[in-house]
């Protein structure tokens, strides 16, 4: 460990923050897109990640090469997201916010326990190729886990593609229109249902990409693994402003930085309370800037 405050310390922390932030950004984007088009805080977003990871594991056990496993994970997560929308969310479109949220809560519990039934509650190792687990030592004590590079590169590509999609393509514009005002969008001939489905597909695919990096970090898959990421994605969305893609990305990176720097700077006696501090920041932000750091105006409050 570098001395706190040295240049190397800061560079190291920046690298870690970028790596972790990229993962959070990828997770948060899906949550934000779904919220934007149907005002649903999709609690089951994390179970989509879990589902993708198990699909990846099954493919890996079939002996498929890793690129195919990765593609399978991403596509599997996307398919799961689409199924979820069709089966569980479409029938109650337009229900009160809390009913939607509770429904997603139930979907999450349902899928998690289906995974328990199918794969047992124990965690299983998910061996990753060396390309993702090796660590570079460019100079001095500095170390760069390659997973950070992959996560950063993957996030850059995926989020760049997403930015192009929502600003430069017709269907992307339709999605933003539907998010802005579903009724007006529908009157203009936009098929809101189709757009919603697409938002689920893209958001879940991003989650599938993120889970590859997440699993490379923790090394195992387990039915309850989607829980922590979805909470982190929530916090990222709240930090950046709920329901906007730039907000989710910025929030993801800010959350990554917050966690890494708290971890590095807190005295060891209280470092266990890091997550408590993170959620305290969440509550504080909800109060002082309910629209997030990018947002403007007030969220609904009494």
């Amino acid at each position, binding site marked *: 460990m570098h001395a706190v405050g040295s240049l190397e310390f800061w560079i190291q922390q920046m690298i870690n923050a970028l790596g972790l932030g990229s993962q959070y950004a990828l997770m948060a984007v899906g949550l934000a897109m779904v919220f934007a088009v149907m005002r649903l805080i999709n609690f089951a977003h994390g179970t989509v990640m879990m589902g993708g990871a198990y699909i990846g594991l099954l493919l890996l056990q079939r002996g498929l090469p890793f690129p195919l496993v990765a593609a399978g994970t991403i596509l599997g997560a996307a398919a799961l997201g689409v199924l979820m929308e069709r089966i569980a969310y479409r029938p109650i479109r337009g229900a009160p*916010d809390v009913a939607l949220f509770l429904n997603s809560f139930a979907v999450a*519990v*349902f899928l998690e326990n289906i995974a*328990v039934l199918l794969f047992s509650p124990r965690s299983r190792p998910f061996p990753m190729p060396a390309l993702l687990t090796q660590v570079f030592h460019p100079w001095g004590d500095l170390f760069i886990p390659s997973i950070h590079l992959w996560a950063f590169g993957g996030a850059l590509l995926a989020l760049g593609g997403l930015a192009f999609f929502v600003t430069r393509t017709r269907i992307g514009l339709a999605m933003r229109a539907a998010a802005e005002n579903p009724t007006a969008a529908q009157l203009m001939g936009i098929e809101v249902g189709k757009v919603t489905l697409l938002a689920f597909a893209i958001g879940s695919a991003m989650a599938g990409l993120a889970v590859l990096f997440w699993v490379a970090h923790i090394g195992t898959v387990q039915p309850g693994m989607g829980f922590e990421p979805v909470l982190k994605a929530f916090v990222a969305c709240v930090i950046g402003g709920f329901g906007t893609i730039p907000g989710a990305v910025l929030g993801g990176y800010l959350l990554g930085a917050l966690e890494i720097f708290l971890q590095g700077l807190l005295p060891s006696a209280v470092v266990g309370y890091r997550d*408590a501090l993170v959620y305290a920041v969440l509550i504080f932000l909800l109060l002082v800037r309910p629209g997030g750091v990018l947002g403007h105006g007030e969220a609904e409050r009494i």
Partner: protein
Amino acid sequence: MEKRSGSEMKAISVRQGWLWLGRGLGGLLLLGLYLVIERGGNAYLQRLSVLFLINLMLVVSLNLFTGFTGVFSLGHIGFMALGAYTSAILTLPVTAKAANLPDLPAPLASVALPFLPALLLGGLFAALVAGLIGIPILRLSGHFVAVATLGFLIITRVVLINAEAFTRGTRTFAGVPPYTTLSWAALWAALNVYIAWRLKHSTLGLQILAARDDPWGAQGVGVAIGRVRLIAFGISAFFTGVAGGLWAHFLTAFSPNAFYFSKTFEIIVMMIVGGMGSITGSIVGTLLVMSVTELLRNLEPGVTVGTFSIGPLYGLSQIGLAVLLIFLTAFRRQGLLGDREFRLEALIERTEDWIREFRVPWKASSVREADPFMRR
């Protein structure tokens, strides 16, 4: 007082008679049930009854806040945890403290309180924390509160895991004296239901309901929304904390994992099934959901029907709860009772009505008009 004719007075006194008879019968039924379970010696039934009463407290308390105010709390199990750990630390015998919690600060290490004060302190501590976090959180609305209270639940868990001097961290907190009996649980549950009922039908309760149904209108007639919500939050947290204490002294050993999402999910489903805002609905919801989960839990180790057998089905009860909730949000969002209550008066009126219509259909309309209870 308006003047009433003789027949009117008679109808009222007859109704009063039925009402008291109904109450008496209901009371006797509950007492009989209590005696049968208490003296019957069926350990499984006793255990289930105590857990039912504790769950009932959790659900009624949650409903007292979430159902009455319309503000969704996902953090109530955090209050349960606070009550459980506080009361357990307070009642733990001094020798057990020296062995299990060697780093406990001085005043706590040398006391072992009796059950009731420990329960009360656990509840009060939960209410105090509710007051502190409620002041900022309750200004939010919609699902932002849900997310903020979720944050509280996670913070509580992190603190429980890290404050090892008080809680033993992730390790099991064991050796809590088994003080909780069926009588204790029944008394507290009855008190909880009674207070919730009185609250709902008091001026304060009407203010809370008004703030839920029409916040701007309520503010317009002088309801301090933040204040009434905070009071409901505090009362709710108090009883949730006491329920946690009862639970701790019933199971006698637990860890922070017990106070997390699956429990939160369970009591939310119970509340939704019964109906948000309905106290009698909470009773029905708790009973129904517990029966279903208990049934499914018994299937979890695997079932054999004749030659056909199914292996272990872990997670079946949770799947059952999830499916139940999904169907409810899709088809009957208000739950079984909505925010109405089951009332003896209404039952008697309806039965009287039914008997009249059935026996003397040609007289029914005139009797109805003479009946002050029936006027709309």
